């Protein structure tokens, strides 16, 4: 009996905490997404009319959201930005992971630490740093002008380019680390075996290393794509004022329009996108691992 | 290594048991119908076990046979689903591991890596809230027992495998338990060390008179150390006896094959005469074996003969015996193993003691094998096996 009580004392605090502050909020968001905005505190209409015991919620917000070009653009834009940024991260990150795994073991840890160090410094400040670099009168443009390479500054800040740059910059380590973890774990003996069997280096890479690192790639893509989907800071600081992403829509609805039911709806749709991504990536990894 | 010289002579011949054994009194460990399952797997299946005071008892079996679970049940680290466990006459149901009069040497040794050797050994005594001075004294005494006082200030990571094993023993013994449980205490040591550690274990047990229960998969270890051995298979105890008896009179094929090398010949009983029987195994002549209770002519049986009990003469012999041809041989230093083909297909291993014993034999030689009937054990064979 005391054993059971002891176990419950350990189990309950984290369980209750996560149910209250993670699961319950999502339920509240869903409920409010069915409600309508009103002026007042709280700024949404009640869902149930207790006097007549009637449910007042409807899916009007959802139909509005999916029928409105502005929001649809925001969603599609987010998916596009996140997907392209993920792909660029992969293109830069995979060779980096490969390179780190190929150096002497004693040098790997410092290289990994160097990779993670920026992650420990403020995300906001790292994004902000790019403004100095990319501005029309920023460091890169000044250098180009002074060297006489350009007559007029290149427009880099507040474009799609700067948003991609910012996201890739922020999330690159999240692509490298899982890929490195997987590559490092396989035996380099496999590569030697491939070489021994006459495979040229590039060929053995294509037929051995790349397929084996798929789980790492999947994890890396997940870790870049999902947060990029809901990214707010980068488009806000580096993107143009008309640049649409879900995170920004959500922010505007919450703080400027104070249309919380609509913000809640945007959140639920984003949540569905996130869950769908996670589940499908999990599927891909599972499918690959089963027949082996 | 520091095994105190001269202590090894205290060891008794295993079969005589410890002089402290109070024969006929209540056992120190008594298990009655104990079962334990994990999910669908029955790890321990209705086991009855009785260990007397001062015994060196071994649980012998292949990995996964339930022997470690049985040990953990005694220690209180697992709970039985059914049955009773009594330690020194006391019912153990509901008594947690930390209140039982037993201590364990774990297979991994489970030394606390953040504590020095002295702190490790003192850990159990500190739980009893003994005075500091007494703890310190007992720690030193126990370390001295294994001549490792010099390691007191080291951390486990700074010890060799053999040193770790001795620290684990110290840590368990310093509590002066009524029973010491040992889970494969020698498995992590290399071969050379294992032999010495075996003698040391035996010497300590004899000196302290504590009941030892050891789990092992190594039949040689079980045989050489134990007063009694229980052979386990699939959660059950198959045979429980003195090592000699298990070796000479295994109760079934499994025990015969697990404990030592064995030739097994299947056949049917053709005749029963007094203490011996004849078995027709298609070898041309009837195979002689000792009579076992309940065996009658026509019964399907297996006959087990230890390789070293077989007598080999070259050429055909008219004084009975099975003839065959040498197929191969292996030199073992002090003995030879000769592989003989009989009846065209069956292989029988013969162990010849002595350096020169098998030197003259080469493949193709005609030989005759024979053995005394009492050296061959027969047990009933289920039809279809």
């Amino acid at each position, binding site marked *: 009996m005391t054993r059971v009580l002891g176990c419950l004392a350990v*189990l309950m*605090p*984290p369980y209750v905490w996560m149910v209250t502050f993670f699961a319950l909020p999502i339920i509240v968001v869903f409920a*409010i997404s069915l409600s309508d905005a009103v002026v007042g505190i709280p700024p949404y209409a009640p869902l149930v009319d207790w006097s007549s015991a009637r449910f007042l919620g409807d899916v009007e917000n959802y139909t509005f959201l999916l029928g409105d070009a502005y929001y649809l653009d925001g969603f599609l834009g987010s998916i596009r930005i996140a997907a392209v940024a993920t792909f660029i991260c992969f293109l830069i990150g995979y060779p980096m992971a490969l390179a780190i795994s190929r150096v002497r073991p004693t040098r790997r840890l410092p290289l990994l630490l160097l990779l993670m160090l920026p992650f420990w410094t403020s995300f*906001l400040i790292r994004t902000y740093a790019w*403004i100095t670099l990319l501005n029309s009168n920023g460091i890169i443009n000044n250098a180009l002008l002074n060297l006489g390479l350009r007559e007029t500054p290149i427009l880099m800040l507040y474009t799609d380019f700067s948003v991609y740059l910012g996201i890739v910059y922020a999330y690159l380590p999240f692509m490298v680390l899982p890929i490195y973890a997987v590559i490092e774990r396989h035996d380099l003996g496999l590569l030697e075996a491939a070489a021994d069997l006459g495979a040229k*280096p590039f060929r053995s890479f294509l037929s051995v290393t790349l397929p084996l690192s798929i789980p790492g790639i999947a994890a890396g893509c997940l870790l870049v794509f999902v947060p990029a989907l809901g990214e707010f800071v980068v488009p806000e600081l580096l993107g143009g004022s008309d640049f649409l992403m879900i995170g920004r829509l959500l922010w505007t609805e919450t703080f400027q329009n104070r249309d919380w039911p609509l913000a809640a709806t945007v959140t639920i749709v984003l949540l569905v996108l996130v869950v769908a991504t996670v589940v499908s990536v999990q599927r891909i990894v599972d499918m690959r691992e089963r027949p082996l | 290594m520091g095994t105190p010289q001269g202590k090894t002579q205290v060891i008794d011949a295993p079969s005589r048991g410890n002089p402290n054994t109070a024969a006929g009194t209540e056992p120190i460990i008594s298990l009655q119908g104990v079962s334990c399952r994990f999910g669908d797997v029955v790890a321990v299946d209705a086991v009855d076990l009785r260990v007397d005071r001062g015994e060196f008892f071994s649980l012998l079996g292949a990995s996964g046979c339930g022997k470690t679970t049985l040990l953990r049940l005694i220690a*209180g680290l697992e709970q039985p689903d059914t049955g009773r466990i009594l330690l020194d006459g006391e019912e153990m149901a509901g008594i947690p591991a930390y209140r039982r009069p037993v201590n364990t040497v774990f297979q*991994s040794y489970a030394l606390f890596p*953040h504590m020095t050797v002295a702190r490790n050994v003192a850990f159990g005594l500190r739980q009893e809230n003994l005075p500091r001075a007494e703890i310190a004294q007992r720690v030193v005494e126990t370390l001295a027992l294994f001549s490792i006082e010099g390691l007191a200030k080291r951390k486990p990571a700074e010890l060799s495998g053999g040193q770790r094993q001795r620290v684990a023993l110290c840590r368990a013994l310093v509590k002066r338990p009524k029973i010491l449980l040992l889970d494969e205490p020698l498995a992590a040591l290399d071969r050379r060390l294992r032999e010495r550690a075996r003698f040391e274990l035996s010497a300590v047990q004899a000196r302290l008179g504590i009941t030892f229960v050891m789990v092992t998969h190594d039949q040689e270890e079980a045989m050489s150390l134990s007063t009694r051995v229980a052979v386990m298979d699939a959660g059950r105890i198959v045979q429980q006896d003195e090592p000699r008896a298990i070796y000479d009179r295994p109760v079934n094929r499994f025990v015969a094959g697990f404990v030592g090398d064995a030739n097994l010949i299947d056949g049917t009983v053709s005749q029963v005469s007094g203490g011996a029987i004849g078995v027709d195994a298609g070898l041309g002549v009837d195979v002689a074996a000792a009579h076992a209770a309940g065996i009658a002519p026509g019964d399907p049986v297996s006959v087990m003969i230890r390789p070293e009990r077989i007598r080999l003469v070259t050429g055909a012999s008219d004084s009975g015996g099975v003839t065959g041809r040498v197929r191969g041989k292996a030199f073992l230093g002090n003995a030879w193993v000769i592989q003989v083909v009989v009846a065209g297909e069956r292989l029988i291993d013969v162990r010849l003691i002595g350096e020169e014993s098998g030197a003259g034999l080469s493949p193709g030689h005609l030989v005759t094998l024979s053995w005394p009937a009492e050296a061959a054990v027969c047990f009933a064979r289920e039809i279809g096996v």
Partner: protein
Amino acid sequence: MRSRWRPLIGGYALFGYAFLYMPIVILVVYSFNESRLVTVWGGFSTKWYGELLGNERILQAAWLSVRIAAVSATGAVLLGTAAAIVLVRFGRFRGRGVFNGLLLAPLVMPDVIIGLSLLLLFVWLQSQIGWPAGRSGLTVGIAHITVGVAYTTVMIRARLSQLGRDLDDAAADLGAPPWRGFVEVTLPLLAPALAAGWLLSFTLSLDDLVVASFVSGPGSSTLPIVVFSSVRLGVSPQINALATVMVVVVALIVLLVGLSMRQSSRRPPEGAD
């Protein structure tokens, strides 16, 4: 990957690292710029650091952020430890999958979702039970604990499952009741993971803009919120100075942690028997 490909990959990696560090280096360099124009070098000066020290708003926000970060990191480690014990030591129980999912989901949840959902929760709770009274440092702390628990659980769980059960069993076998075995054996061995988890939650909390923006109240602007509102208006040398201070502090902490880990993992060679 020999010969021909090696320099290519090496060059690629070098480029990647340069990409990661260049903006930070520029930031640090220009924090010592005399000129107010961030992009024009006007000589060496530390005057922006002086101005930073006189900026009450930033200092107050920084102090609040540090306090929130310390409290929420502590909370996240406590809950994460309990959660890790449940996941590693309790075996299978009904609801384990849900428990695991709840704990780890914040790892793959965009900040805006966590922020908005907690905001709506707090407002709803207030309208229902009157707690929490408005949004404040408390609500920010709760939000940061919720995110931090996911990270601490992962880190502590990894360490705990590495430890195995043997040590607990040994402690129990030697007469230590479960709580005493935990305090004397498990806890000291978990210490590195606890410290790492604490530091990570601390920095995550210190760094968080999005979640904090949703759940903070009028009087509880954290450092990132203040920095953000200033950065939105354009580049400011003071922010460069602040950024430099933060980068240096973080680099020092990482260096110290790295060194201490190296120290503790150093082992003498296996002794001969």
